[in-house]
C-alpha cells in the first residue's frame, strides 16, 4: 500500500501547481499574455504574510484567509500602474513588462527580507495519520482540501454569479461585452487581482513544506505553466486537472524512475505537449476567425 501516500503527496504538490496554473490562465484570458511575474507575486505576498504573522501573532489560518485580499490588492494595483498603459500596444510589450516585474519583485524581496530562507509555521499537524493501513500526511490532505474548496468557489463565481459571467464575456469578445455595458478595463484589473490572490495562497500553502525565500516560486511557476499547458491553457478546469496530473506524475517518476530527473521532467513535458497536442489534453483546438 505505498502508492496511496505517493498519490496524495503528488496531488498535494499538484494542487499548489494548480493554484498558480489557474492564476496564469485567468490572466491569460483577460490580458492575452502569459504573466511571468505570477510566481514572484506569490512569493512577495508570502513574505508579507510572514511579516504580518510575526508582527501581530495572528493564527496561521487567519493569515491564510487574509492572504487572498492582500494578493488581490497587489495584483489589481500592478495591473493599473504597469499593465494598463501598455495594454493597447503589441502583446509582446506586455509580456516584456511582466518579465520586468518578475525581476523587480524577485530582487526587491531579497533587498527587503534578505536572501536567507525563513521557516514558515505549519498550517496542519505534522504527525502522519493512518488511512487504510498507510501513513498519510495531514499536510497533503489539508492542501488538497483547501485547493478543492478554492476551485469550487472559482467555479461558482465564474458560472453562477453576474460578475463572473461578465468576466467570461469580456474574455470571449471584449467589443461585444463593452456594448453590453461591461467595463472591460475593470475586468482586467479584477482578473489580475484574482490571479494574484490565488498565487499568494499557493505560496502560503507551500511555504511550510519548503522554506520562504526569494527563489521559492521559481520552480513552481514553471510547473504551473507545464501543468496548464498539459491540461489546456484555454480552459480553467483543464488547466487545473493538468496541474494535478503533473504533480502525481512527478511523484511517481521521482519514486520509481529517478529522483534527479524529476525536475527536468516538467520542462521536457512542456515541449512534448506543445509539439504533439498544443491545445492540451482536455480542450478542443481553438479555431481562430480571420
Amino acid at each position, binding site marked *: 500500500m505505498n502508492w496511496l501516500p505517493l498519490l496524495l503527496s503528488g496531488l498535494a504538490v499538484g494542487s499548489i501547481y494548480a493554484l498558480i496554473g489557474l492564476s496564469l490562465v485567468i490572466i491569460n484570458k483577460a490580458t492575452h499574455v502569459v504573466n511571468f511575474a505570477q510566481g514572484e507575486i506569490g512569493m512577495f505576498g508570502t513574505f508579507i504574510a510572514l511579516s504580518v504573522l510575526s508582527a501581530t501573532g495572528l493564527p496561521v489560518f487567519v493569515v491564510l484567509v487574509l492572504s487572498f485580499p492582500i494578493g488581490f490588492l497587489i495584483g489589481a494595483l500592478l495591473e493599473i500602474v504597469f499593465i494598463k498603459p501598455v495594454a493597447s500596444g503589441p502583446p509582446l510589450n506586455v509580456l516584456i513588462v511582466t518579465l520586468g516585474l518578475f525581476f*523587480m519583485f524577485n530582487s526587491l524581496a531579497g533587498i527587503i527580507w534578505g536572501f536567507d530562507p525563513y521557516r514558515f509555521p505549519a498550517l496542519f499537524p505534522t504527525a502522519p495519520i493512518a488511512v487504510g493501513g498507510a501513513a498519510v500526511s495531514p499536510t497533503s490532505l489539508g492542501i488538497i482540501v483547501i485547493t478543492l474548496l478554492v476551485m469550487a468557489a472559482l467555479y461558482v463565481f465564474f458560472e453562477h454569479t453576474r460578475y463572473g459571467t461578465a468576466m467570461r464575456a469580456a474574455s470571449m469578445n471584449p467589443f461585444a461585452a463593452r456594448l453590453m455595458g461591461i467595463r472591460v478595463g475593470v475586468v482586467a484589473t479584477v482578473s489580475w487581482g484574482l490571479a494574484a490572490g490565488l498565487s499568494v495562497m499557493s505560496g502560503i500553502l507551500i511555504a511550510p513544506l519548503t522554506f520562504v525565500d526569494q527563489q521559492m516560486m521559481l520552480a513552481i511557476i514553471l510547473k504551473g505553466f507545464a501543468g496548464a499547458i498539459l491540461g489546456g491553457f484555454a480552459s480553467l478546469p483543464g488547466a487545473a486537472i493538468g496541474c494535478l496530473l503533473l504533480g502525481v506524475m512527478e511523484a511517481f517518476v521521482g519514486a520509481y524512475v529517478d529522483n534527479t530527473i524529476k525536475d*527536468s521532467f*516538467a520542462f521536457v513535458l512542456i515541449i512534448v505537449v*506543445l509539439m504533439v497536442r498544443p491545445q492540451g489534453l482536455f480542450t478542443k483546438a481553438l479555431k481562430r476567425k480571420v
Partner: protein
Amino acid sequence: MRTIACLAAGGVAIALPFFVGPYGHYLLCMAVIYAMVALSLGLLLGVAGQISIGHAGFWAIGAYTSAILVTKVGVPFILTLLVSGLFAGVAGLLVALPALRVQGHYLAIATLGFSLVIVHVLYEWDGLTGGRQGMFVPRPSIFGYELMSDFSAYFLLLAILAVTLLLVVNLRRSLGGLSLNAMRLSDIAAQVCGVNRATTTMFVFALSAAITGVSGAFYGAVLGQLSTDSFTLVVSLGFLTMVIVGGLHSVVGALLGGLFLAYSPEFLRAFEEWQMFIYGALLVGFMHLLPDGLASLPRRALRLVRRRDA
C-alpha cells in the same frame, strides 16, 4: 552618409582599445560578445516578433562545446566556433519544433524550460563539464597563435562581429527577413502571401541560437573558465534587458545594448543588490516610455524639433 557613419563607427571600434588599459580591453571584449547575443535576440524579437527567455541556454551550449572540443579533443579554437554555432543552431531548431503547431507566446515558455534543462544537464554531467566546480578554458587562438591578451582577442572578436553584422543586416533586407517582418506584423496576412509560418519561425530560431552559440564560445575563452552559474535565468533576462534598452528594431540598438550590458555592472557596482531591480525597472520603464530603445532617441528628438518648427 550611411557609409561614412559605418566607417566612422568601425574606426572608433578599432581605435578604442589603444586608449584604455587591460581591464578596459576585457570590458570591450565583453561588449562585443554581448553585442553578438543582442544581434541574435534582436533578430528574433525585433524582426520575427518571437521572444526567448532561454538564450543563456544556447550561450551555454556554444561555450561548453567549444571548451570541451579545445581541451579534450584538441580542435583549433577557430574551428570550434563553427561547431558551437552548429550545435546551438540545432538546439534552437529543437526548441522551435513546437512552432509547427503553436502560435503566440507558448514558445517563450519552451525556451525557458529548455535553458533550465540544459543547465541541469551540464551541471550533472560532471565528467565532461566539471559540474559544480566548472572547467578551465584556454585562451582563444588563431592558426596556432594564442591570443594571450584581451587586446589581441578584441580584434578577432571585432572581425567575427563584423561578419555577424553583415549577415544580420543582409538578412533583414532579404526575402527571408521581409517575410519574418510580415509574420510579426500579422501572421495571417503573411501566410496568405505565401510565407510558411513554421519554417520561417524555425529558421530564425536556429539562426539566432547559432549566433548566440558562437558568442558563447568566445565568452568561455575570454573569461578563461566556465561554470553553470554563468547561464542562469538571470542571464537570459539580462540579455532581454540589453536588447530592449538598446533598441529592438535596429542593428545600432543591438550594439548599444551590448555596450550597456558590459558596462552597466561597472556603474551599478555601488548598488550591487539593486542591480537586478534596476534591470527589471529598465525593462518596465523602457516599454512604457521608449519601446524602441535608445536607438530611437535621435529620431524622436528630430521629430520633436520638427514639430516645434512647424
